[in-house]
């Protein structure tokens, strides 16, 4: 990790990596969408609406994954003062908020035909909504200070406090009797899902993951460049 603790070196590596990751993301999302929307069977109970799941489930996974990225980056920023960690945290937060919003919206679109309602106040939905608020709170806090350094540190502590919500989201379907169904994939026995549906789901999940990496790199580069501009302005205030 220390080898990467150099913004210039990171920028160089990211530059080379970006087209490959972007291509892979595009490819797996394209194949995943084709399989999910056209080449996979409709569900015997849910009918065609099951196809919403190929977007909904990966979005929800990514919403949690982004928060864990945010938390791990925040921890390494606070503990080891890693110079790229706060950049990564600040870059990841809006992406995570976007994935959370997408999970909530696609969930509502699926819930309307299947549950007969756009929204229910069950434990899974409520805790994901809280996750969305946590992202918004983090973004608001980081931008609320005149010195960026101060905002980064305050935001890092908030991100770590918010980690309590992640296990609540994960286990909410087991702890409470909810309308939202429990996990179908991460079970001790075989996944409760047909292979024809599993393959587009995993492809979409992979594609979303790669998409996250692409946007993260682009956003980190933007933040680093903005910092550099700020530093240059400080050296030559007249410019």
């Amino acid at each position, binding site marked *: 990790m220390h080898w990467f603790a150099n913004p210039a070196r990171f920028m160089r590596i990211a530059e080379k990596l970006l087209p490959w990751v972007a291509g892979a993301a595009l490819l797996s999302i394209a194949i995943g969408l084709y399989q999910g929307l056209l080449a996979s069977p409709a569900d015997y109970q849910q009918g065609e609406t099951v196809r919403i799941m190929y977007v909904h489930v990966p979005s929800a996974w990514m919403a949690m994954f982004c928060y864990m990225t945010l938390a791990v980056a925040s921890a390494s920023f*606070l503990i080891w003062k890693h110079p790229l960690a706060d950049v990564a945290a600040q870059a990841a937060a809006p992406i995570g908020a976007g994935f959370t919003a997408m999970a909530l919206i696609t969930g509502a679109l699926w819930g309307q035909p299947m549950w007969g309602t756009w929204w229910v106040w069950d434990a899974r939905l*409520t805790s994901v909504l*809280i996750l969305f*608020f*946590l992202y*918004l*709170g983090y973004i*608001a*806090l980081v931008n*609320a*200070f*005149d010195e960026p350094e*101060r*905002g980064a*540190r*305050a935001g890092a*502590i*908030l991100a*770590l*406090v*918010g980690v*309590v*919500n992640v296990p609540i989201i994960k286990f909410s379907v087991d702890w409470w009797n909810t309308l939202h169904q429990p996990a179908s994939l991460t079970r001790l026995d075989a996944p409760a899902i047909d292979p024809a549906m599993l393959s587009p789901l995993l492809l979409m999940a992979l594609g979303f993951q790669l998409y996250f990496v692409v946007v993260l790199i682009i956003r980190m580069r933007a933040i680093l460049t903005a910092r550099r501009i700020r530093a240059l302005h400080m050296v030559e205030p007249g410019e």
Partner: protein
Amino acid sequence: MKGFAAIIRRELKLAMRQGSDAAIALIFFVVVVALFPLGVGPEPGVLERISGGVVWIGALLAAMLSLDRLFQADHEDGGLDLLVMAPWPLEVLVLAKCLAHWLVTGLPIMLISPLLGLLLHMNTEAYFTLLAAMALGTPVLSLIGAVGAALVLGARRAGVLVSLLVLPLTVPVLIFGVSAVEAAAIGQGAGPHLMLLGALLLAAIPLCPWAAAAALRQAVT
């Protein structure tokens, strides 16, 4: 322990001398709860049904309103730097601050809540449960609020921001507090809900001062 007692004495003395600050939160609580019958209509059946939730939301908002009292004044006059440099662990001092904050705002809110329950036609069975749930829940609000109040020190529009940060984290208190009152109102035992509230309090007592102290340290350096 000397530092702990000294902080509580100081906070209480300050609150006594400028009593209006604590009173404002209490009046705000009463006004918010009194608005609900005007908003949803005065039918006793409806009010009885929502009374537990209304009292809890009022308490939550009143607690948010009083959070800027916690560290803001000390941050402005430099007292916070002395607290950070004091020979006692900052976590203990933060805990003392939270306890003092609860004594000044949480305790009056808790004591007046049955009266507001009366105004909302709450089932008389539920009053003791409401008091017990408030006694366990309002300290958690002060503790979680301390983390938020410490994080926003020196931020722009800190008052609004602290509510945005803290309110999502207080949802468990609201859920179990309301379900305790509702269980008691329909004659079921409120025991499990009160135990969960107690568990939240026991978890918040060590964790929140720790996080708040970390936030205070980075605010003064």
